[in-house]
């Protein structure tokens, strides 16, 4: 145990603290949920309407996405590890739920930064 060990330990924690602070300062409420499968955006749902929908993941996998009370959550999946089901519900901008076996990424976005997209859609 040397002094450098403590320096490394505390600077790693400081780096975490900084990243966390930046993320929470940018913390804004999200307005829509974007679903992407294998890198391709497949669906966008508004956060303010309750909804239960099936996501068809990569390789025939399937996940159930539930939006209720301004929060999105994956409640069921037929993958072996179920880590997406155990992840907490997301509601703020950039918060993400990932299902690695099905290559499904569910991201919340605020929807304000792409105003032009919203117009053309």
């Amino acid at each position, binding site marked *: 145990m040397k002094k450098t060990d403590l320096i490394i*330990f505390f600077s*790693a*924690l400081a780096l*975490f603290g900084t990243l966390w602070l930046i993320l929470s300062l940018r913390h804004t409420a999200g307005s829509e949920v974007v679903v992407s499968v294998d890198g391709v955006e497949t669906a966008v749902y508004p956060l303010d309407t309750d909804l239960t929908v099936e996501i068809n993941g990569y390789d025939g996998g399937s996940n159930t996405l539930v939006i209720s009370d301004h929060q999105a959550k994956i409640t069921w999946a037929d993958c*072996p*590890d179920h880590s997406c089901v*155990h992840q907490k519900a997301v509601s703020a901008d950039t918060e993400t739920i990932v299902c690695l076996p099905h290559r499904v*990424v569910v991201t919340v976005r605020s929807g304000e930064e792409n105003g032009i997209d919203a117009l053309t859609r």
Partner: protein
Amino acid sequence: MHSQGRRGVRHLALLAMFSALAMILSYVEILLPFSFGIPGVKLGIPNLITLLILYLEKGTGKNAALVRLTDAGIVLLIRIVVTGLLFTNVYAILYSLAGGLLSLVCMFLISLSDRIGIPGCSVLGGITHNLGQLTVAMFVVSQLKIWYYFPILLFFGTLTGFALGILAYMIISRRGVRDYYDRFFEG
């Protein structure tokens, strides 16, 4: 010649023992629910073996630096592939391999330095493990967004890395362990 062969056998037996120990620790890690619902968070107990190989051999000066790297690498590969096939799936093997190999190279380079001790080495090993994992995961889902997990992985990687590093330091500094390791190659 004769003694060289005998030493080779002992070396092989030692690697086999380390591999078995690493596999048991992997299993213990699977049994302990520590992830808090965050994918990729784990204790990293098997990393204890990598630290032991790198630093025990360094401390006793029995083997050249490159031998330490290949020893730790062989044990790591055996552990990840065998426990991966036994308990998880091919993708989990891929993530573990990426994280494990990256952190092994990082920890090996650090172990060459005398200015950084075992806990610091373990912390940086934990962080690079997370970096490797996230990089593979990013390519699997083709999404940059996955780096959203980095801060939280960094936090847990630092804490568990430090704790395990101190544990490894405590094990290695015990006289009995060193004596046993010394005697293993003699006689």
